[in-house]
């Protein structure tokens, strides 16, 4: 091949690096081609519409929404046998194991009901909510959580309290908000 023609071809190939992939795929297997093109289209449509996901197509925002410092933060504190659990004593996974059940349980009933009534029922016409809405009561959760935490921490739990404490951020530090008596 003459050097000039080869250079042109190289340049063309560089520009078509990605589109060439679809050609290879099309030539290799038409079914996979259709599936992957469909995947690309749905991913792009979902990114534009920012709506409901369809596994395995998701949004990968990674803290892209605006999150500014707030004046007040509500912090969940878990006290076991009179001692506050401290994040520093646990790995991120372990800490998630401790706090996520508490955070999610508080929201799950209203959230699940809302998703079922406003989205699932409307889009898929499913009428039985029992598969989407949980029935665990607060009392059952407390009992489960105490056992769960006891097993995880490998200690006998005599007392367990979970509090939501407001903290004020003054631009430099977070300080617990004290209740004024007068």
């Amino acid at each position, binding site marked *: *091949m003459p050097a000039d023609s080869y250079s042109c071809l190289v340049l063309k190939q560089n520009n078509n690096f990605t589109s060439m992939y679809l050609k290879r*795929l099309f030539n290799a297997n038409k079914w996979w081609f259709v599936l992957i093109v469909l995947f690309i289209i749905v991913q792009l449509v979902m990114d534009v519409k920012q709506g409901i996901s369809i596994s395995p197509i998701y949004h990968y925002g990674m803290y*892209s929404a605006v999150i500014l410092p707030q004046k007040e933060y509500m912090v969940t504190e878990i006290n076991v046998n009179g001692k506050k659990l401290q*994040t520093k004593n646990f790995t*991120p996974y372990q800490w998630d*194991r401790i706090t996520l059940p508490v955070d999610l349980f508080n929201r*799950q009933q209203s959230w699940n009901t809302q998703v079922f009534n406003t989205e699932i029922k409307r889009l898929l016409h499913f009428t039985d909510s029992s598969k989407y809405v949980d029935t665990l009561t607060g009392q059952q959760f407390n009992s489960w959580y105490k056992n769960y935490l006891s097993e995880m921490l490998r200690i006998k739990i005599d007392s367990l309290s979970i509090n939501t404490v407001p903290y004020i*951020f003054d631009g430099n530090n977070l300080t617990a908000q004290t209740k004024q008596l007068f």
Partner: protein
Amino acid sequence: MRKDNRYTVIVLYCIIFYGLMLYKYINGMFLFQLQPSFFYTREDMFTWVFMQTGLHKWLLNNNAGCMLFDALFYTAPALYFLHYRNNQRTAFITAACMLVINWVYVQCYTLYPSNSIEGHTAWLLFPLIFMAQKQEMFKILLDGLRYFFLFFFVSAALWKLRQGGIFQPLQMSGVLLYQHTQLLTNSPEYWQSRVILWLVQNPWLAYTLYLLATLLELFFIVGFFTKKFDKLLVALFLLFLVMDYFIMRIPYFEVLPLLLTLYPGAGNNPVKDGGVLQPSNTPAISS
């Protein structure tokens, strides 16, 4: 048997998978260790259809069921590896089983208080690639997954532009406070708390980190045009994971298998690294 690139990818996949298995077991992240007692419905149409099976409810307070699911999920890659080593032609059957197991497991697992489904995408997609019967198809699909991996990062950067996080000088301070309120309030003397608070108190420094992370994500766009920078992308990806762990306390390691898509020569095509065409009578080079 011939140990080709596909074999190496499978071995590396298993090493990552079982390394993560160990890490998750130590941290109590197996399904039977989580002992799920309730679920949290996410906004995912596939999940809604899947939930019709009732499997997610069957696993609630069902320790034996959870153990069975763990056993299936954690043995599948080893079985696939053994099957592939002994019979490449029929290994797609085990890959298909692994696909079903992974999808069912991940769908259930992420409905409970564990972590997000987005981080588990690699487990959902890799079995599809292993199902390819021909070597050439495997390479093409792995290349496709490489594009997905690049998109994963690039879209995160584009979302920051679209949603406006990148235009807020106080963004990273807000993110750090949002992410670490518990650490900052219950362990204020801890070294990590001090570093985080220091960043919060110096918003421009914190913002610089956010900006660098966005640029890092955006840099993955080069992968759409050339494979020349794949080694750099591997280094950036690992840096991203390490920083995510230390600054954000987010163990995002479940996406590690996607690293294999940047494995040199794993998905090589007629276009050599750098996008340079090989003369037609020269075999494609796998570096």
